[in-house]
């Protein structure tokens, strides 16, 4: 058969099957989507096809011939190209320089033949309908354009088989449309596409066939005609779930946090915050929606005193700008950081240490700066039990926990141990499975019921809609609109996130 055939592929990590006995056939000239929740094995499968991982068992055939992929070069030589989720680009180089990196056409004297390179790139751009200014510096491009540079890179390496790894997760709705159009063009040019995603709408729009993975197992492959959202969701999660739902109703109290004209410095690759204003009340969840990279991390860091900021942040009347990070946290703020492994936990430390980190001086664990072992063990065991942390032992390192249990450690510490009346949560369910996501939502609403004020910053619109009473949209470092959950619609929020409405309104103001 023409195309790629994988038979009996298994991959094991530390005694756990990341992939188990996968049989997958990708027919030449089609768009084949692979969907599944985070942790279903999509990335592992892609890494096996790209040569980055070697499977424990199984064979791969390309156009009927068996191949072995020992490293990414092997894959590249076989005509397999990958557009990574995290771009592999050098920001200070120009588009054409990035594109030819590693396969530079050279003149006889070993200098780079720019004319030849430009000819090759222009032809590729024309053939595949990729709109790019080849002379522009990559660092100044939008995320969507950077992705096109990645696609261009793959095309000039003569890949006939292209893997897209979660390509839409960083794009605005409008950029997604352009990307999907590009992918369709590639198919018409005879390329074979493997499209990895967890967003069903996109998959249903472009795929010819859809394969569903769940916890390392292949659940089934459907033709496009047989597939609809309900079938795919039930295949992905294995049970009926309701990811919809509305936020719990709690009567909001007084204003707790007032942010006025909060600005951070512009850096080379980020615009910083631009006069952000909002008010957060007790017993309220304020969702901050936006496409990743529009100032979310800057907002968290500015509020926590981890980066330089100007303006005013008043919590119960006390000014927090100018205080140190430790001083701000002492005012009673619980935090769920965006990246639990880098910012939330010390992976190389025992679970016990992680459960009490930041609260070690709270007086519950000892006195006069010393710590009592008994108190530490009792406190952390109680927390682990209350928040249902499944762990081998308290002394085991945090790195030995699954993602969901790592997040539970953070929840236990921030909600169970820390004294707080304000919670700042950023992407609190990133990378978790449905069960863990529901647990996190439940815990956040429990805190809300206790009249705590919650700032939820998330790039998942469904999460924002599920939890928030009001929704602020962050675009290019500015809060461009705050809408009530009851009147908000996905379409309106999508337009705001893409900056479309903001631009129109600015235009209106000028004409007035």
């Amino acid at each position: 058969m023409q195309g790629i055939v994988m038979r009996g592929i298994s991959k094991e990590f530390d005694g756990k099957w990341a992939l188990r006995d996968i049989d997958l056939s990708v027919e030449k000239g089609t768009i084949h989507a692979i969907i599944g929740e985070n942790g279903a094995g999509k990335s592992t499968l892609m890494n096996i096809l790209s040569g980055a991982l070697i499977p424990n068992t199984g064979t791969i055939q390309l156009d009927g011939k068996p191949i072995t992929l020992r490293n990414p070069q092997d894959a590249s030589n076989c005509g397999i190209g990958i557009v990574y989720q995290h771009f592999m680009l050098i920001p200070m180089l120009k588009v054409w320089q990035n594109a030819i990196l590693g396969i530079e056409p050279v003149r006889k004297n070993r200098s780079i033949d720019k004319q030849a390179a430009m000819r090759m790139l222009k032809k590729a751009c024309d053939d595949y309908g990729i709109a790019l200014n080849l002379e522009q510096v990559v660092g100044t491009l939008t995320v969507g354009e950077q992705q096109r540079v990645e696609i261009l890179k793959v095309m000039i390496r003569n890949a006939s088989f292209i893997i897209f790894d979660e390509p839409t997760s960083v794009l605005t709705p409008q950029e997604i449309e352009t990307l999907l159009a590009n992918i369709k063009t590639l198919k018409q040019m005879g390329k074979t596409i493997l499209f990895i995603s967890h967003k069903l709408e996109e998959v249903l729009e472009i795929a010819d066939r859809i394969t569903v993975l769940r916890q390392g197992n292949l659940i089934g492959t459907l033709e496009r005609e047989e597939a609809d959202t309900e079938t795919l969701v039930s295949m992905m999660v294995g049970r009926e779930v309701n990811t919809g739902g509305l936020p719990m109703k709690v009567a909001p109290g007084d204003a707790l946090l007032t942010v006025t004209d909060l600005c951070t410095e512009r850096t080379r690759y980020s615009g910083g915050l631009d006069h952000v204003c909002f008010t957060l009340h007790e017993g309220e969840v304020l969702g901050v929606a936006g496409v990743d990279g529009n100032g979310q991390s800057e907002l968290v860091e500015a509020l926590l005193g981890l980066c330089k900021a100007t303006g005013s942040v008043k919590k119960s009347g006390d000014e927090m700008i100018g205080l140190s990070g430790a001083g701000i946290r002492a005012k009673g703020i619980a935090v769920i950081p965006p990246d639990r492994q880098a910012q939330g936990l010390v992976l190389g430390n025992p679970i016990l240490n992680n459960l009490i980190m930041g609260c070690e001086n709270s007086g519950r664990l000892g006195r006069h700066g010393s710590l009592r072992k008994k108190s530490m063990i009792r406190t952390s065991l109680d927390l682990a039990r209350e928040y249902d942390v499944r762990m081998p032992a308290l002394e085991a390192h945090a790195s030995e926990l699954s993602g969901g249990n790592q997040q539970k450690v953070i929840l236990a510490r921030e909600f169970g141990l820390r004294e707080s009346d304000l919670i700042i949560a950023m992407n609190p369910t990133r990378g978790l499975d449905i069960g863990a996501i529901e647990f996190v939502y439940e815990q956040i609403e429990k805190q809300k019921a206790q009249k705590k004020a919650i700032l939820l910053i998330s790039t998942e619109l469904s999460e924002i809609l599920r939890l928030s009473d009001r929704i602020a949209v962050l675009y290019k470092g500015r809060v461009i609109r705050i809408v009530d959950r009851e009147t908000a619609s996905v379409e309106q929020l999508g337009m705001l996130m893409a900056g479309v409405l903001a631009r129109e309104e600015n235009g209106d103001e000028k004409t007035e």
Partner: protein
Amino acid sequence: MKKQNKNAIRTRDSILIVAASFLLALLVGGLILLLQGENPLVAYRYLLIDPLVSKNGLLKVLGKATPLIFTGLAATLAFRCNVFNIGLEGQLYAGALTAAVLGYTLQGLPAWLHLSICFAGAMITGALCALIPAWLKVKFGVHEVITTIMMNYIISNMISMLVINYFRNPGETARTPYVLDTARLTQFKAPEQVNTGLIIGVVLCFAAYWVFSRTVFGFRVNSAGKNLVAARYSGINADRLIIVTMMLSGAIAALGGLERSLGAFGYMEVNFSPGFGYDGLAICIIARMNPLGVLVVALLMGLMSYGGLNLNIMTAVPIEWVRVLTGLIFAFVVIGNTLLERRGGVLFRKKVLLKEDAV
């Protein structure tokens, strides 16, 4: 899940790695000796056993180990916070000179007061020497490895200059006058170098062990040292922590210099250190940043240092071979550490059964 004490397993594996590295190094070192036509067993007797059977030898070993305990511990304090204080050598010299100068200039003080002033002076000087690179790191993000190495040159040369031009004992080699009796650390058995500094070093090691396992400060250092960002996010003032651990590290390295000035020699001589500061870094790595481990490894290094001299006198084996042996131990420990890290901190993992419902 079966209950097992993971901490006990980790401690066991750490000791296992250091012991295995030592034995492997002896094996490879022995092969080198064989190639030179020497009998390794004889060499090892002179190196490792001979010094330990006589009281005189034992005292010499302890004397050689004492400054290494201080520098090893100083390195451990900084490394635990993930700050690489390569400046121990300079901080040691600074402490040695301050102690010696205070020791011979202040007259008419009772011993307890005189010694207290010397201790305070040395520790403050050492801490200030370490403060400069720590401040540069926190304020401007300058990497401490570069600044501390540069500080070593600046401080040790400045101190030689100070001794030669201002504090020199007339007519002698470039050294200060003897310190007064009120500033001497009691020697156990003159003229051997062992003195009360050894006891102070041992006590400090146990104290540091307690600090790291049972105090808020130690807890914060353990967190920040392994993940600075997470520590910051959890509300720990990491900048202050870096400055405090660096200053403590400098102060303890300075005490190592004080021990030489007031205890072992009674004066401070230019270029007296054969690299105690640098040896401290190696000791800290071999001891896997454990203060009690530092004690053991420093004693072992003291043994090899004196045993090496012994070996050199009794056989034709060159003294450099002992440095090779130390290097081998260091290399094997580093390899072992990497191995341990890859296995998530546990050396022998039971073969895990693959379960159907692995999540």
